[in-house]
């Protein structure tokens, strides 16, 4: 016979899952913040995030206030395809990036990988 009632066990498991999901999100936020710093200092009042969402997707997200004080948001999705890199901004259609932009993305991705290894995950690697 189980020592703990099933409902209590379920509740405990759920709490663990919630905590783990929170931890996961927190780590991704940290990665995104580190990623945002790759391109130089982030101006005051501006939020910049750059991160690897999954093996095939990189995201650049930027928020700022324009001169009229209204909030502006730009989100760029890069989709890594076998024959090139596709880019979409703010939900518009995807198009191929040129080699120059792809080179810059590659450099940024390499720096990103290096920085998260050294600054975020070094203790576990």
């Amino acid at each position, binding site marked *: 016979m189980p020592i703990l009632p099933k409902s209590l066990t379920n509740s405990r498991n*759920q709490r*663990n*899952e*919630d905590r*783990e*999901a929170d*931890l*996961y*999100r927190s*780590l*991704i*936020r940290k990665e*995104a913040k580190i990623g945002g710093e790759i391109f130089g200092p982030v101006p005051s009042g501006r939020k910049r*995030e750059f991160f*690897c*969402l*999954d*093996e*095939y*997707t*990189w*995201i650049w*997200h930027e*928020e700022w206030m324009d001169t009229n004080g209204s909030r502006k*948001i730009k*989100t760029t*999705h890069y*989709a*890594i*395809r*076998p*024959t*090139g*890199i*596709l880019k*979409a901004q*703010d*939900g518009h*259609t*995807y*198009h*191929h990036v040129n*080699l120059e932009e*792809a*080179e810059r*993305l*590659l450099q940024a*991705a*390499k720096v*990103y*990988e290096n920085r*998260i*290894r050294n600054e975020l*995950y070094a203790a*576990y*690697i």
Partner: protein
Amino acid sequence: MNLPTIGYSPEFLRNPAEFVAQRVSIVDASVHRIEASMNRKREIANLHYGEKMTLAADLLFDNRGYRQILESLALGRNAVHPEVVPIPQTALEHHTDPPKVEAGYKPGEPDQASFDLWEKEISGAPSSGFSRPTAQDLVEVEHQALLADLRHQAGDVAISAGETYAHIAQVVN
């Protein structure tokens, strides 16, 4: 509440070292994918006209007959007897159909849940209503890019998917 995660199951987080290894491995794989993708793009840029047509056709149809015709064009042979390489009528009829995604073609498998979670939970931004493209959408973009490249390479010769196949039909007949 069952929270979705971005590409991971919560089980990974029960073992942080395992999670970190998994996460770093995904980022590393992505970096290599970018490199491989760029290399392939450079290779495509240097392909001959006919080879690009082959590639465009491969994206549209998994049709060996067409591929052989296109390959023969790439090699400079101007005619392929229809009995040797029969052209299925259906392929011509369907030349305006959207590209077909071959079975098992899964790079960049769409994961709308990941985007939704990212928008709501990570970016903190209001949802842009952005939908992650399907694999078929992406193939369509690649196909259009190839056709645009072919148009450029062919100079004054206008090429569209339909015109490409009409041209092939002309050649073989």
